[in-house]
């Protein structure tokens, strides 16, 4: 079973997001692994543990900082890491999906895993685009994957606990919302060891595609309303919330 997992490094949304020109200033933010990719790596590793095979993680190195994410994936159970040396922070989703699809073509993948989305999107998601370029079926919003022979059974979530089970003949692309089990923790010592010993295969970008979107402007939302802020120490805040609740008959 050849499993390929596409992973993406994105600006941490826990940070302030300074704007430079018409995009977030990538030089002044921290990059983290997209949260759905952690789920996706875990689900891929679980499938490998169940049926055998190899998990290869692949990413487009947009800003020359992908190695950390690849090392983390290896520490969490992936076997091989590949980076596409895109090195173009302005490459749009279609271009990245094309590069990924071209790189994945050579890997004879039985399954391709992607995160259901990344939070910095405008024209995402890359999972369905890879599926379109590779002419494989795609199902997103997936929260469990089981493989038997040359088909996979996946559960897709709609909302409120309602979902559907699908059976798909492989190869396919899966958009992972959540792994069937919470992602495992990779101890720091393991990550450090991987960082020192692992090799990352480099692939030159190939293929061309464009989103056909021109970014006009990126800015914080114009707020139409704002919470009435309760000032003071945590104790003051607690007191005021309790008073508020009591005044409304809610406590």
């Amino acid at each position, binding site marked *: 079973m050849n499993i390929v997992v596409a992973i993406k490094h994105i600006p941490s*949304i826990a940070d*302030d*997001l300074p704007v430079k020109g018409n995009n977030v200033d990538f030089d002044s933010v921290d990059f983290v692994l997209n949260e759905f990719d952690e789920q996706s790596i875990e689900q891929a590793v679980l499938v490998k543990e169940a049926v055998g095979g190899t998990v290869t993680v692949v990413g487009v190195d947009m800003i020359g900082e992908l190695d950390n994410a690849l090392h983390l994936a290896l520490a969490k159970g992936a076997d091989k890491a590949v980076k596409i040396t895109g090195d173009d922070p302005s490459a749009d*989703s*279609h271009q990245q999906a094309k590069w990924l699809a071209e790189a994945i073509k050579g890997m004879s993948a039985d399954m391709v895993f992607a995160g259901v989305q990344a*939070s*910095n*999107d*405008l*024209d*995402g998601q890359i*999972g*369905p685009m890879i*599926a*379109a*370029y590779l002419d494989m*079926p*795609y*199902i*997103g*919003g997936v929260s469990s994957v089981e493989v038997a022979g040359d088909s996979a059974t996946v*559960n*897709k979530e*709609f*909302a409120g*606990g309602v*979902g*559907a*089970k*699908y059976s798909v003949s492989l190869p*396919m692309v899966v*958009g992972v919302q*959540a792994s069937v*089990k*919470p992602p495992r923790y990779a101890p720091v010592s393991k990550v450090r060891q991987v960082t020192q010993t692992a090799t990352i295969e480099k692939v030159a970008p190939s293929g061309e*595609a464009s*989103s*056909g*979107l021109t*970014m*006009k402007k*990126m*800015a*914080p*939302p*114009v*707020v*139409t309303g*704002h*919470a*009435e*802020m*309760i000032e003071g120490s*945590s104790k003051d*805040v*607690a007191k005021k*919330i*309790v008073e508020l*609740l009591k005044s*409304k008959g809610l406590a």
Partner: protein
Amino acid sequence: MSNDVLVITEHMDGKFSDVSFEMVGKAKELASALGGQAVAVVVGSGVSSNVFASDSTIHIDDAALSNFNPEAYGKVIEALVKEKSPRLVMFGWTATGMDLAAWLSARLGKPCAAYVKNIGADLTMSCQAYGGKMVADVAPEGDMAIAAVLAGSFPVEAGQGSTAATQIASPVALDGLKTKFVEAIKPAGGDVDITAQTKLVSIGRGIGSKDNVELAEELAQKLGATVSSSRPVVDAGWLPRTRQVGKSGLKVKPKLYLMLGISGAPEHLEGMKSAELIIAVNTDKKAPIFNVAHYGATADLFEVAEAMLELL
């Protein structure tokens, strides 16, 4: 090539989702500015399709389409879009639309914007990005664009009507599909129903660990409330799926929604923004939740919860 706006509607258990009507309403406005028609597209069966205020409605019904199947739906919609060659195709940015919009975009080589909150008459689209902390305005090139629209962006009423649908056969053969619908998955029972509670204490990733959930439970108990959460708390295994509020969770409308350590991502807001009283405690003063909550405090949730416990 036409100036029509095609809306891919969506339905479940015989009911169209609100976003379908929202899109049809917006499509009417855009189509009249563009000099085209607003066309509602219904794929699948078991639903009465004469419910839109569209200029026309096309209903494609086939046994292979009776349940949502991304491969089958994708093929049908691709064929229809090629035939109609509209100016704009609208999807909901939903569990089903997310499988189709970007796929169609790559198949056709046409631009697609996701998380769309608004669309101008020149088709410039305003999209949420970075979990609601940013808004991007993008302009699509060429003669056709795709918009994947966030639920709750436009009024529902403008799309409601009674246009008689035209039934057509599937424009493509639907045999030999690689994807097969096996069965529906029903929600797990046995837990409290958070949609029926009047007071919720809702925790997010800021709660930090499973052990800390107890603090929220204690606070909830003192308030006569129930604990609910954002998605990451459930994905981490700290609370059962039955407690999740949001797009892929449950929609709640309690009298009190007290939020501890939830950032207010658009997917969470979809599930709770109509709560009567929203109070948010978050250490990040720029957390998007403060644009939605009625009351907010930039404070540590643990300190505030402990202090509240002493006062109750």
